[in-house]
């Protein structure tokens, strides 16, 4: 997928997508020899912001792991990243059929809590997956992505009775999603 490209989450057989997962993965900072406990760990965080008519209604991030209505769930904060073999280190699951009726857009963001820019992070990626069949809908490589600490990744939004997804891929800077709000609003 390229920036700005929109895809419909209608399935080929006419059924519409019911669950998506936003996955975020990165490689743990390598341990340094002598003082192994003093590694500089890299903590990336995935967040999802729920909007109703361009007003933020709810946010799912590492301090609030489940949206009040239960439709969006964060699988838990990972502070150090994985072993870099391609698995998701943090994931946000969205049950589209349970999203409250007034929520019309959900924006996914990634930010570096520990402050390293994506240039310094190894093997970092984020992706959107159709949770029902594991098929990857979109994937970004964050590593080497410039001197930014955050990215507005993608949004899913209501179109008629179903949902569309638009890749945004807009770089930004910020420690948590609050810092990203000004960058998110133009994308709505």
């Amino acid at each position: 997928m390229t920036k700005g490209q929109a895809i419909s989450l209608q399935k080929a057989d006419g059924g519409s997508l019911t669950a998506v997962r936003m996955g975020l993965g990165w490689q743990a900072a390598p341990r340094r020899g002598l003082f192994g406990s003093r590694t500089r760990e890299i903590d990336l965080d995935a967040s999802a912001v729920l909007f109703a008519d361009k007003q933020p209604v709810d946010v799912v991030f590492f301090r609030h792991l489940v949206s009040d209505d239960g439709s969006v769930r964060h699988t838990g904060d990972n502070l150090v990243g994985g072993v870099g073999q391609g698995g998701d280190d943090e994931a946000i699951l969205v049950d589209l059929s349970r999203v409250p009726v007034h929520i019309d857009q959900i924006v996914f963001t990634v930010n570096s809590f520990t402050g390293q820019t994506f240039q310094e992070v190894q093997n970092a990626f984020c992706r959107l997956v159709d949770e029902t069949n594991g098929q990857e809908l979109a994937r970004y490589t964050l590593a080497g992505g410039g001197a930014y600490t955050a990215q507005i990744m993608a949004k899913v939004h209501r179109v008629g009775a179903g949902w569309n997804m638009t890749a945004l891929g807009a770089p930004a800077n910020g420690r948590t999603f609050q810092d990203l709000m000004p960058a998110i609003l133009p994308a709505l």
Partner: protein
Amino acid sequence: MTAELVRGQNHPLSEARLEIRVSAGTPVVAAATLSDESGRIHGVEWVAHPGAPTLPGVEVSRQAAADHRLAVDLDAVAETVHRVSVLLALPTGVGGPVDFGSLAAPVVAVTGLDGTEVAGFTLTGLGPESAVVALELYRRQGAWKVRAIGQGYAGGLADLLADQGLAQAHQLASAINEAVAQGVARSVPAPPSRTADGDRSRQTTASALGPDQAASPYGGQGAQTASDPYQGSQGNQVPQGAADAVASYPTGPADPSATTQPGTPAASGTGGPVDYSHPRRRNTAPAPPPAAPPAEPGRPAQPVAGDATGWSMEERLYNQVWGMFEDLARSTAAYRSAVDFADTRMDRELDEVLSDPRSRIGGQGDAARESARAKHAQLVDQARQVLDRDLAQLAAEADVVEPALPPAYARWDNPTWHAYRVPMEMPMALRLGDLHLPESDRLRIPMLIRLPLERGLWIDSGRTGSPDGSFLDSHELRRLALDSAVAHTARLLAVHPADEFTVHVLDPAGSGAQAFAPLVHSGVLTAPPAVGAAGVADILTRLTEHVDLVQMAVRGGAADSLPPDFDTAHQLLVVNDFPHGFDDRAVTRLRYLADEGPAVGVHLMLVADREDAAGYGPLLDPLWRGLMRLTPVPEDHLADPWVGHAWTYEPALLPPGSQVLQQVLAQVAEARRLWRK
């Protein structure tokens, strides 16, 4: 409670099953020696090392690694063993560092099975040594303790073993080094055959989703998988019953979410991996949960009772009820949020119409107002439809779940209470009443509270803001509060085994004699309700002593040193008309019981009107806050843990005219009589 030890310091161990975690920053060999009272190793078979990694009760890694987790089961260690020494050594002949002086100080920690650290020790100040005794676990008057040692040996393993009196020290040291060298040469070993999910508790913080993340998140060494204590090369397990003496007396069954593992049937053998399964838990795989019949296309699946995870039907129903509770909370949150949004949007749009000069012309304003209202109605409608769909599903689920509930979870009018038998085990949880929300008046969620109670209960006999506005005079409220206290007490008595729950009743003014009659006449109380200030003082003194004794025993790791006539049952103190008959000293004692009691199995149930205790001022605020407030009439004062809705609580009351309480109490009393014989 972590103790950071210094060299020579010791610390009691309250658990027999432990893990010793080693973090050295560079691959080291971890081994354990067993020795007798005088600290002597009797032979090579008393040493667990990479070449022979398992001994009864001890297992070490087969390889050198930067991080180790050694499994220890002190109950499985032979009687003749009085000391288990954990030692670290640098592998020789593989080109690594040759002494500990060039390394960061290794860290050794003793942890429980759930990962909670008991004691830690950093081995500082090492120089030319290449082997070191890190710490030792030793028996002292029947209890085990850990001592930080940190004794290094420049001559390596051979000197270390020789120092502990092992004749074949040199041969064994070279055998260990050879085994390690072989291990290093081997590539990353096959993943350990995890037959069970026993390591779930320590993996919970790891990122779980990646399919290729089987390796544990601790350290990046490839060899680490070999240090997994579950890898059993010999396929034997220590005998199941070996760990039956559980030192943690009154806390009851451990949290089943902590370490549950079905375990394979134990073959009796001497060596083998330490058995992590809970000694009192079944060791066969549980019956599979009932399968939901396949759903018709386009319709939600038919709900089935017990359709949740868990090792037993009881646990599955508990999880299912909590799942329903959460689903209702969240569905309602979605509905309320949508309605809020619709209201706000309509207000804004109506304001816009008012301030727009064009709306004064003709019917434009009316049309805009109309459209704003229509949009509002449409959104609220949609939200309501979604909520109704969810409510219907939850109601259908409740209809199948309610009849399937065991007595501890069931309403008093459930037929299961007529088939009541005194149980052999304490249940996971107890139903204290029902919860519902105004949007879903018909749907009642059982309010299940984990046992043993973590907080005392306060049955509020004061004036309440009952939602239906019905007026009850204070006399009537006091009667209802007392009745519901008796119903809760009877339920607690009924769901515990005969010898595991003792109830004391304090009724200083004697005003509750009529309400307590079912408890008194059935004979389930050990003594009649205590009256007067003397009765208050007497019972509080006894219970305070009880708490002190158990605390001392638990902290000292000597649960078996309690007096022989000590009542090891859970204790419930029911206080009517608090603070009538209480002086300052008695109030202080009660607060002590409320704070310290739950951890050692002493629980409180206060029937009180907070106004009556107003004379104590803010002194009692912490007491009220520390108790769970229940009302004798429906009141919306309980919040759920997810969204924080105000739920209306209704106590679990007996159907009018029902004899079920008397029947149940009669059975409880009979079982107690038989038990005491």
